């Protein structure tokens, strides 16, 4: 083949030689300057596109000889420091005298900052949609490990909740929720260098398993990032069509720059720790509490005689239950992270490169979590000629993670503190009370009362050390790009540029889990030594072709550009897994190693899509700007008739500042523009084949296998979910853009909401439809952000700041009545029930519950006894009611209080009172008891008919009927913040720089279930120290009810006792950095050496009593904090060296 080609080419050469025998085939000559002949001057033959065809270098005497390919080409002479000369090849001999280039005329270079990314290269001041860009320059040297950390608090309208586990990632919501089902992703689309990540979305629960995957997307090393742009309104995301429905985050990575190779090494050392949560009881307090809570329901000593709580040395396990173990302390530690990063970049006229490699080693602040990551990125650009540039990018990440098999923090909060971590030598042993090296787990012979909780709680320390849960993930994405200038090369000519790209995405993951027998004290057949191993791989292939036309107008007032793009995407994924149990103990951890295989699974999925985009930009005098985009999306998610969705957008910008009548303001005003936009975008469901009936395998019957069942109904009505959005933005720039201010208001309506698993009457054979287009939702909000560029500058000192805030209001406008009903909960009168209530035309996240009014001081029986047998009472009062009224208002004779050692004060007891506070009595004159969920016998309704006792929580009887029931439930607040945002300052003094960033949230409330659980005193779980202030005896004045094991109490109904304000102000980071002066470095051959120290999330100012007020919100239900792992606090020490 090669030979054949050679022959053909030679023949062609010969033919051309034959045709033009007279032509010049070689040139020679000398090159010299005013000081004599030049050695090493470059002579080359260049073609019309500037491509070098042949080249030669002058010798000692300045002579050269060079073959010439084509006499139509030109010859170029160049030498460093001298003016380059380009001549036509019209002779065979050249004697060149070169002139010095150091004598230059004054040159003005004018360039416009242009939008990068996937859209048209529009000058920044002509951008007509809502975006916000942060240049990574701002973060250079900051101790960020992930992009989301860098973005937190920086983008108006982008709410980020960071996860606490290693690699757990964050949840991001841009401008509120765009969907209320788990069927579509609520996180913004991540675009890296114009490429989207194409993951398998089938069988993927976006709300649950999503965050880790999402973290993978953000797995770009912050050191590699050049800039991040967040596209907010629908007009901006329009070029991404259905992919960008929840907003877009565009990340641009750094590329090589001309110059000699530079080697940069960055080191970060980070230590982090887990913030302390509630102070929990120690062993002694815990046992006392538990004894009380068992005694109280039955008032019996027998019930509270539990051997694990008795501190009885004759009990064989005595030593294991006489401790004060701080489980929380035992499972947390200082986590250490080291991040090493090396970059080499450089290049010449022909090619530039940037190669980087990083290695991360991290241990978390929770024990047993470890992460190792190796990442590399290669960006190469090769200029084939002035017209053609070939770029190749390759990026690979390998992540090895060791995770916990149990939620250690949750276990640590519940585990009984009088139990020991390690088994201890028993009574009588020489080493009595000393730890052995075996972990202790409650024996199966432990007391029956612990059967469902303490006995099944795994020893978290043992779990961290013995169980195995690890994953290995490889993520590769190679890309090849060609840029071709088909017409003109500069702004003075018509330009038509073609960009072709091929991009692949490969993701492989292996997960291995093993759960050893040692962690559970159960029978062998309950599934001990369980193991799982699974792998999945996903490959996607994208080709993208973009043609950009930039016409040249003679009249410079007009400028326009247009772009057409075709993007084609195919992908497939496969996965398989095996579960096993009953493996032989000791080292064997793979399910296929002789145990019982309990499950085998495999999956295969395939998807294709086709996107076409047309985008046009027109500006008149750079003052009136019009943008138009039309995107057509075709996907396999819909059936033949519905495959294509068309999404148009229009946006305008009027740079008022450029109007002649604004001239007066130019001294201080550098930008004033308004930007209205309108767009319609769509979203497809994440599941395939909903448009037809699929038949899938089902269980066998006898020897008949391969049996099939229909999976659901064919959804002929399914269509795109569409969002119509309006945005109005105002840009202001002051003092030559030293202060820039942007204001955005938006209004977007989502129609034909894709509701997942829509409930239908099951007499149709199916309980749900896979997807149903139903309902209408609206997001309204506004945003504001300020950025400065050397706002204050005085000598060596300069200061900058950024401020942003935003607000979003999300409400359902229309929804199927039945669907609405099934979203709303029915009151079941059980503790801890969080009520969800969505009403049309009201915001989401309303919190409903009872109003708490403390704890009953005395029981009804106490009043009864006093009335019947207390002589003092009998002497002073004629009716029972009078006595009780006096008791409640605190007007009994002083003697009554003195006897009991009480202060004279109004007291509470569970009696019904009318609106005026008077006691309600029955026909016998006895006060009516306060009841909970009372229903008449035989009314056919389910009630509780519970009589409140002393020490029970008091709930306000809103309607004064002596019965606390659903009618006493009131609105307690909203989960939605009135304002969210952040601000930051940075100060520079010479080589010193101090930067800070804060985030805040205002005006929201949170249902603190974590606190509820640690104050409930109805289980055997460890409780917060607050319960030491519990009600214990008649007359106690406290806010914490009595301890009572089991369900015979209603002390933890959702009430305002557990609804707390979620306002907070958090310092995201503070960092001090110092760069050594260059002159101090040159003697050791360094270019740059800088150091920094930073503290991430060092503190948060809040009245919220939970571990962390940063609780997810935005779903349709109330925001609840059930004790998620809070983000850890960390301190980083960093160093960057450049050679």
């Amino acid at each position, binding site marked *: 083949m090669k030979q054949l080609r050679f022959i053909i080419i030679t023949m062609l050469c010969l033919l051309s030689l034959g045709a033009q025998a007279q032509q010049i085939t070689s040139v020679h000559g000398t090159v010299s300057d005013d000081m004599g002949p030049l050695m090493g001057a470059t002579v080359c033959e260049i073609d019309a596109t500037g491509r070098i065809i042949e080249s030669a270098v002058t010798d000692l005497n300045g002579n050269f000889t060079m073959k010439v390919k084509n006499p139509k080409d030109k010859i170029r002479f160049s030498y460093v420091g001298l003016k380059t000369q380009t001549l036509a090849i019209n002779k065979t001999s050249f004697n060149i005298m070169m002139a010095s280039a150091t004598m230059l005329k004054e040159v003005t270079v004018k360039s416009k900052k242009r939008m990068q990314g996937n859209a048209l290269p529009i000058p920044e001041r002509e951008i007509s949609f809502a975006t916000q860009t942060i240049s990574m320059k701002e973060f250079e040297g900051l101790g960020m490990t992930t992009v989301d950390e860098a973005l937190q608090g920086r983008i108006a309208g982008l709410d980020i909740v960071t996860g606490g586990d290693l690699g757990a990632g964050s949840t991001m919501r841009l401008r509120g929720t765009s969907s209320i089902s788990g069927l579509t992703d609520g996180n913004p689309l991540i675009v890296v260098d114009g490429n989207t990540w194409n993951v398998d979305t089938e069988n993927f629960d976006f709300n649950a398993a999503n965050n880790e995957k999402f973290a993978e997307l953000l797995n770009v090393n912050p050191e590699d990032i050049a800039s991040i742009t967040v596209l907010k309104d629908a007009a901006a995301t329009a070029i991404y069509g259905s992919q960008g429905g929840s907003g877009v985050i565009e990340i641009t990575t750094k590329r090589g720059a001309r110059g000699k190779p530079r080697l940069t090494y960055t080191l970060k050392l980070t230590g982090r720790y887990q913030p302390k949560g509630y102070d929990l009881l120690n062993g002694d307090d815990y046992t006392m509490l538990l004894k009380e809570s068992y005694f109280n329901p039955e008032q019996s000593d027998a019930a509270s005689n539990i051997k694990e709580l008795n501190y009885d040395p004759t009990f064989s396990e005595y030593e294991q239950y006489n401790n004060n173990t701080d489980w929380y302390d035992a499972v947390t530690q200082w986590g250490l992270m080291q991040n090493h990063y090396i970059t080499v970049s450089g290049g010449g006229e022909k090619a530039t490169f940037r190669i980087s490699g990083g290695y991360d080693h991290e241990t978390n602040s929770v024990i047993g979590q470890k992460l190792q990551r190796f990442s590399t990125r290669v960006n190469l650009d090769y200029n084939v000629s002035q017209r053609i540039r*070939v770029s190749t990018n390759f990026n690979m990440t390998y992540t090895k993670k060791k995770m916990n098999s149990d939620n250690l923090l949750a276990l640590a909060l519940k585990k009984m503190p009088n139990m020991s971590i390690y088994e201890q030598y028993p009574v009588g042993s020489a080493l009595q009370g000393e730890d052995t090296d075996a972990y202790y787990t409650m024996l199966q012979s432990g007391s029956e009362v612990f059967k469902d909780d303490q006995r099944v709680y795994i020893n978290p320390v043992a779990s961290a050390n013995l169980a195995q849960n690890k994953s290995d993930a490889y993520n590769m994405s190679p890309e090849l790009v060609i840029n071709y200038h088909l017409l003109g090369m500069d702004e003075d000519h018509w330009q038509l540029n073609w960009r072709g790209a091929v991009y692949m995405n490969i993701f492989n993951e292996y997960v291995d889990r093993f759960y050893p027998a040692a962690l559970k004290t159960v029978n062998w057949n309950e599934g001990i030594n369980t193991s799982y191993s699974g792998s999945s791989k996903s490959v996607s292939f994208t080709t993208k072709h973009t043609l950009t036309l930039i016409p040249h107008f003679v009249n410079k007032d007009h400028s326009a550009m247009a772009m057409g793009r075709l993007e084609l995407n195919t992908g497939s994924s496969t996965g398989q897994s095996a579960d096993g149990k009953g493996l032989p103990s000791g080292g064997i951890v793979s399910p296929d190693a002789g145990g019982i295989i309990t499950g085998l699974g495999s999956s295969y999925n395939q998807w294709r899509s086709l996107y076409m985009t047309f985008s046009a930009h027109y500006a008149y005098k750079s003052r009136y700007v019009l943008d138009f985009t039309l995107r057509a999306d075709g996907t396999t998610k819909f059936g033949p008739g519905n495959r294509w969705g068309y999404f148009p957008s229009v946006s305008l910008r009027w740079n008022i500042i450029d109007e002649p009548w604004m001239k007066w303001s130019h001294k201080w005003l550098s930008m004033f523009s308004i930007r209205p936009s309108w767009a319609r975008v769509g979203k497809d469901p994440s599941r395939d084949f909903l448009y*037809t009936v699929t038949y*899938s395998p089902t269980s*066998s019957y006898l020897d008949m296998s391969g049996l*099939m069942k229909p999976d659901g109904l*064919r959804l002929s009505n399914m269509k795109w979910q569409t969002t119509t959005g309006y945005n109005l933005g105002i840009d202001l720039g002051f003092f030559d853009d030293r202060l820039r201010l942007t204001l955005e208001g938006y209004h977007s309506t989502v129609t034909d909401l894709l509701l997942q698993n829509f409930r239908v009457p099951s007499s149709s054979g199916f*309980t749900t439809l896979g997807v149903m287009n139903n309902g209408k939702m609206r997001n309204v909000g506004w945003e504001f952000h300020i950025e400065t560029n050397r706002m204050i500058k005085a000598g060596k000192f300069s200061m900058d700041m950024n401020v942003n805030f935003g607000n979003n209001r999300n409400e359902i406008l229309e929804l199927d009545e039945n669907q609405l009903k099934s979203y709303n909960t029915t009151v079941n009168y059980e503790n801890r029930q969080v009520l969800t209530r969505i009403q049309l035309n009201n915001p989401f996240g309303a919190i409903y519950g009872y109003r708490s009014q403390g704890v009953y001081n005395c029981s009804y029986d106490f009043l009864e006894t006093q009335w019947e047998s207390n002589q003092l009472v009998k002497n002073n009062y004629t009716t029972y009611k009078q006595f009780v009224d006096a008791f409640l208002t605190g007007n009994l004779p002083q003697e009554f209080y003195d006897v009991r050692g009480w202060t004279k004060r109004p007291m509470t007891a569970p009696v019904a009172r009318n609106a005026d506070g008077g006691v309600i009595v029955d026909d016998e004159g006895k006060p009516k008891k306060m009841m909970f969920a009372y229903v008449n016998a035989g009314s056919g309704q*389910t009630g509780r008919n519970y009589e409140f006792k002393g020490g029970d929580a008091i709930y306000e009887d809103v309607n004064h009927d002596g019965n606390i029931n*659903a009618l006493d439930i009131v609105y307690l607040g909203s989960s939605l913040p009135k304002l969210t945002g952040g601000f930051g300052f940075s100060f520079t003094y010479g080589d010193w720089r101090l930067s800070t960033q804060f985030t805040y949230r205002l005006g929201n409330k949170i249902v603190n279930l974590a606190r509820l659980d640690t104050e409930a005193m109805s289980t055997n779980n460890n409780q917060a120290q607050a319960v030491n202030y519990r009600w214990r005896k008649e007359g106690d004045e406290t806010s914490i009810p009595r301890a009572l094991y089991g369900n015979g109490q209603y002390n933890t109904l959702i009430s305002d006792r557990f609804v707390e304000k979620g306002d907070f102000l958090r310092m995201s980071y503070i960092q001090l950095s110092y760069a050594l002066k260059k002159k101090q470095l040159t003697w050791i051959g360094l270019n740059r050496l800088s150091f920094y120290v930073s503290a991430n999330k060092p503190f948060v100012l809040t009245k919220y009593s939970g571990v962390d007020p940063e609780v997810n919100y935005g779903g349709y239900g109330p925001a609840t904090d059930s004790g998620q792992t809070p983000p850890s606090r960390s301190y980083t020490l960093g160093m960057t060296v450049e050679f």
Partner: protein
Amino acid sequence: MKQNHIYNKVKGLVGLMLLAPLSALLFSGCDDFFDVEPQDKITLEKFWNEKSDVDNVLMGCYSAMQSYGMISRMMIWGEFRSDNVNKGVGTHNDVSLERVLEENIDPSNAYTAWNEFYGVINRCNTVMLYAPQVAAKDPAYSPSELSATIAEATAIRSLCYFYLIRTFCNVPYITTAYIDDTQERDLPVSSFDDVLDSLIVSLERVKGDALTRYPSGTSEKAIYNTARITRDAIHAMLCEMYLWKKDYDNCVKYADLVIDAKKERYKEEHAGYNMDTDNRLNGYPLALDWAGRSSYFFGSAYSNIFGSGNAEESIFELTFSSNSGMLRNGPVNTFYGFGAGNDLQGFVAPSSFLGTDVEDKTYAVFNNEYDSRYYENIRSVGNSVYSIAKYVFTSRLVSVSTPTKPQVASVGSTYSKDNNQSNWIIYRLSDIMLLKAEALVEKMDNANEAEVNTRLRQQAFALVNAVNKRSVCQTTLTDTLVYRDYNTKAKLQTLVMQERQRELMFEGKRWYDLVRRSLRDGNADYLVSCISQKGLENVSLVSNRMKSMKTWPGQLFLPYNLDETKVSENLAKSQNPAYPSGEDSSIKTSAN
């Protein structure tokens, strides 16, 4: 030269990159590009082409009926509200079950959900829609095979509906297949009688098409005769349906068809051989419980019917096996077998009066201590605690060698936890015999002449007596039923009820028997007197509600599930008024 090469290559690459996607489009056409076929399922467009497609969906109905959701409901609906069953160990793990056992049911109870039944009904309807189309395409699918398919599908569908009307009274009766989301889904309910009549009509129509016997082959093929619908099974269903319809002549007619077929079969298999030497079975082809004339052990019938399964006297049972692709009998495992932990005790247990019935000689259910079914069905765990043994143990050996009292000689083997493979029996011969006896007793009213009455009485008694005698664990029969003790219709009625209770205990029949009786009596007195024995906490309240004429007979039937009434106006409108709505609690909506 070299650079030229690169240039050419780049050009080539450019061309390739341009062409590759375009040619993909050009050659395949735009629509073909989107034609992705799933790899792990089949789309409608590619399905329904050959007989095996039809068979695969139809047979899938059997495995669907074996699901936890369906068998658990057959147990709970048919048995757990009755006097036989009460709370066991770990019941609190299943709140809905606990509420059923407490007779504290409202529409939010999970066991009022019927979706699995309608799922199977829809699959049957789908089979009936597509099978004729397949037959037109597939020459290997003969017309007789097609009609057998239709008969089998009709029978499975009817069985599901029969469960539904006995549980919910009026239900939506749907005979068209749901394929598309454009079809109307909220349909009005049909009355109990209308549905029952429709079921009878459709079964009468297809009964002749059903196979009487499946072709024999491997040992697994051999059990098709009891594991799948046969003509006998359809006759059995018709027999019971006519009994509910109070058409006693037809009930007897179909019972006889079943009994005769079984006799025929017995004769074929055991030609000229009579095991029943002391005439315990009155000539009926039942299995003997006595292990053999020379032995002192009983329990043969038990291990035959419940241990090995697919016994000769069986008519239709959902058959489990050790095949790995098959489901396990989960409900029996959790409800009867392993409720919590590894001890053999389920979420439910025999009610205490039933457990101690023989122990303290009350004999409220069992006649005397010689009823081997007591030992076979109930297991003493000690300290007057009893658990259900039926379906849990594969054999129960009752020894009668001791002079005082029979006792369980060996506990017998059981399935291990989560691996229960005992068949769930829908119809077996003794059931049909007792249904016939019930019909005969009811016919006595219409027979004016004493002679006719006597004949009916004798016939009924002979049936009951045969079932009873085989389980009397005496080597020499002495303590059996005495004919003259049952000289009135009322006494016979009670005898039949009680014999059914003893014979079919824990098989998902008792509550339906009580409901049928109540509907016939026009009051729930008998039912109330039975269930008040089981020691409900709120027994008077429950009794009053059951008896209450205001809502009667609503309380005997379950309410529609809340999730269903939320999405169906027709169901909400027709909701059983005897129950609280389950949604009586509303919260204030305004912010104040």
